[in-house]
């Protein structure tokens, strides 16, 4: 049972990492990226492909981060002057295209089958210790990411992003290149997401196109909105909260004796209601963004 707890926390930590990465785009810069999951998928697939081709896993990590950065750059340059919601739909379309490619190109990605049997991290240790080692690794990286993100947010770059978000006209008049700022934010976010994706690939030992379904991005957005868009601690809290609901479902199912369909419905409905409630009554999330008061 305790093993399962470690499992739940590990997965939550990975998702928290994704949430922190999206926060850089969505929280600081206000970019409505609905295709964020593509970056995670790219990171995961890179690790899977490296395993399939029997390359060194480190190469897979590097490939994933680089590919995600390129994709992020491309996304940010899409229609430089598109309104926020239009750009969101465009990113959704890009993510779907990436997923379709992953679904069809068997020779590279294993198609609908995916790539299974990816060597987990710390495979030299026995199963029990490996679980602890993995959890420790992810938590460490998460802490690093949170620290980095906070520093970034409090620094000049973060302030520029917030200005881009709140007063784009003012930002331009002050000489900021908006598109370049957008690109930097998106690329940084993409690279971090790819790291999370690589962790995910190793952890589940399986990579499939289902990772990149649009519903997954919506899940991440829920974590952000519930926790507090813009506040690093908030989004991590949101991630753990949502993941807790997700992980407890199988047990609730056994306890209440309900079928899988109903369990899935309850889970989805709960998350949806939570998100809606947050939007209607606590727009800033559970942990609102703290802006420095002058």
């Amino acid at each position: 049972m305790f093993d399962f707890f470690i499992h739940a926390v590990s997965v939550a930590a990975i998702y928290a990492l994704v949430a922190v990465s999206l926060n850089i785009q969505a929280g600081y810069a206000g970019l409505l990226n609905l295709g964020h999951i593509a970056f995670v998928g790219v990171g995961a697939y890179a690790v899977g492909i490296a395993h399939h081709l029997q390359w060194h896993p480190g190469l897979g990590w590097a490939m994933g981060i680089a590919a995600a950065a390129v994709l992020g750059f491309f996304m940010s340059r899409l229609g430089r002057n598109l309104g926020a919601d239009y750009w969101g739909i465009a990113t959704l379309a890009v993510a779907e295209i990436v997923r379709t490619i992953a679904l069809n190109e068997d020779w590279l990605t294993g198609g609908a089958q995916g790539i299974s049997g990816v060597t987990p991290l710390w495979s030299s240790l026995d199963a029990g210790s490996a679980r602890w080692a993995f959890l420790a690794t992810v938590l460490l990286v998460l802490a690093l990411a949170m620290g980095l993100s906070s520093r970034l947010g409090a620094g000049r770059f973060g302030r520029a992003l917030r200005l881009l978000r709140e007063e784009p006209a003012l930002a331009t008049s002050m000489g900021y290149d908006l598109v370049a700022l957008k690109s930097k934010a998106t690329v940084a976010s993409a690279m971090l997401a790819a790291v999370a994706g690589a962790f995910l690939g190793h952890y589940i030992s399986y990579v499939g196109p289902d990772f990149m379904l649009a519903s997954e991005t919506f899940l991440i957005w829920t974590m952000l909105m519930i926790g507090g868009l813009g506040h690093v601690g908030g989004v991590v809290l949101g991630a753990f909260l949502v993941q807790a609901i997700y992980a407890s479902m199988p047990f609730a199912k056994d306890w209440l004796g309900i079928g899988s369909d109903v369990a899935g419905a309850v889970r989805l409905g709960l998350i949806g209601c939570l998100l809606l409630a947050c939007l209607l009554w606590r727009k800033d999330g559970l942990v609102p963004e703290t802006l420095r008061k002058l």
Partner: protein
Amino acid sequence: MFQFVLDVLIRTADLALVAVGLSAVYALVKFPNVSHVQYAALGAFLTLAGQRLGLPFALAMALSCVVTGAVAVLLNTLVFRRLLRSGPAIAMIGSLAVSMVMVALMLGVAGSRPLRYDFEIVSPLVIAGARVSHAQAYSIGAALLVLGGFAWLLYRTPMGRRMRALATNRALAEATGIDAHQVTNLISLISGALAAIGGTMLAMTSDVHVNLGTDLLLPVFAAAIIGGLGNPLGAAAGALLIAVAETAVTNLNFGWLVGQPLAFLPVTYIGAASFLFLLVALLFKPYGLFDREVRRV
């Protein structure tokens, strides 16, 4: 050749009504309502429920339109108007939450198994060498009829004029005494009903399942954006364009390229084709091909 035309019409009929409803409401609320496609799914399920309760199909569909329209109005009044105060992005995320709740309700009540309407199984019609099933023929007919009716409403009635006025210049329209809330509610009702008909027709040619709405999301948005959000009939043209692109792409024989008698593009790439279409459209004509979208002032 005629089969090609029929395939295009069938696919257009699947998308057009939902896209038109989406576009019409956008003109007034100015945010992309992601839950709109779930109205289509809801409509399909309600029609099924009606039929299972013993109502004749047409009546069940009519009731489903009324209920779905009412749901659309309720959601607009209670949820989206409030969220819009915080901006279109928040409203869009709110519509995401609403779609999650709607899907959850449908999943919980109806389960994940695909369900079918209770129709007799009859051989397909053969017209000029092309085959079309009765359901598909009805779908095309209904789409044309309803679109015609909506166009008439929009361009020949005072209500339609009011709606177009509000869409073009809200402040001025309100100054002339047009009640924005009333018009928005009416259009929400109509778009909900349109989505219900579209969803029911789609479910008639395939089946009723919880993913019906989500599967429509990107193609419908692509159609609406290509036509120009806020230009409802443009959305119908957008749906037609997407249908042509999808059908052409999968029917073209690339055998000559690879030296085999028959070689086709994998079918799942057609989804990617419409998104690529959308991306290109957004890049070069972000306000739609007909460039008549209502700009945000």
